[in-house]
């Protein structure tokens, strides 16, 4: 039976003053679910991150510049992303497959990848962590999950 929960503290990060975009962590969120994309966008924005959302693994790879035949793909985009959050269950390329591609890329392998899923499957979790995922989180995501993410953001800024 659901009871009235107390509000959880909002994640507050030190204010990144200055106009340099580089000081604000840039997170790429990958999820085929429209509602989840909107929620992760707001959760991350409220945690002072810049967010780009894409709806599948292919788009993520394109964005990151891993698809060679993209005329506008730039290696700099890849280095501009500080964290990738991906859903596990997606049609086409799963989050696990995306994780493998990222970790297999010399350009991107240092970028932390967090995998999220609505299903708590130990073998799935283990598989992702073995493949180099920084963390595995259960959906639905909450504000308190953003605190955990913060620890895994790469050093950014100059």
């Amino acid at each position: 039976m659901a009871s009235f929960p107390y509000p959880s503290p909002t994640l507050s990060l030190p204010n990144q003053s200055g106009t340099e975009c580089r000081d604000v962590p840039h997170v790429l969120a990958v999820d085929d679910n429209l509602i989840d994309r909107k929620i992760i966008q707001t959760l991350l924005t409220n945690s002072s991150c810049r967010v780009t959302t894409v709806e599948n693994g292919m788009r993520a790879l394109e964005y990151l510049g891993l698809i060679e035949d993209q005329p506008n793909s730039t290696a700099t985009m890849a280095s501009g992303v500080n964290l990738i959050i991906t859903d596990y269950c997606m049609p086409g390329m799963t989050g696990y497959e995306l994780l493998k591609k990222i970790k297999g890329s010399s350009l991107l392998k240092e970028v932390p990848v967090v995998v999220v899923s609505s299903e708590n499957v130990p073998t799935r979790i283990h598989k992702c962590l073995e493949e180099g995922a920084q963390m595995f989180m259960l959906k639905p995501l909450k504000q308190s999950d953003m605190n955990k993410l913060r620890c895994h953001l790469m050093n950014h800024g100059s």
Partner: protein
Amino acid sequence: MDALQLRKQLIEYTAELFSEGFLDEQFTQLQQLQDETNPNFVVEVVSLFFQDSERLLNELAKSLSQQEIDFKKIDAYVHQLKGSSSSVGAHRVQRSCISFRDFCNAKNIEGCLECLQKVKQEYSLIKDKLETFFDLEQRLSATGGSPPLP
């Protein structure tokens, strides 16, 4: 009705939605994400949920009326609906999706059809209740009354 009465009504209605299991803590999470920079967040997410659910329910009805039933496809739709309902805190819709997936795995058409009816019912209920909730919020806001904290 004045602001105080409306406020009281909203608080009571909200408490009912939680105690009857229509909404769960995830809905509260969404309310807490709403602020001056994002004042319509909850309505926006819920609207997306309504649109997406209606699409999925239509697809499910279509898929279950085919000669050759594609259970994998149906499972994928139910998985999406389960995910969305979970993300907005629509607890009873989410629960009804769980049994649906079990029948899918068992390739039980009758079971699936029953579940579809159940999911549609729960969806219809939560849609109605959330629309009432938003209406109360709007009316309270129109009187200048301060909204209750989630």
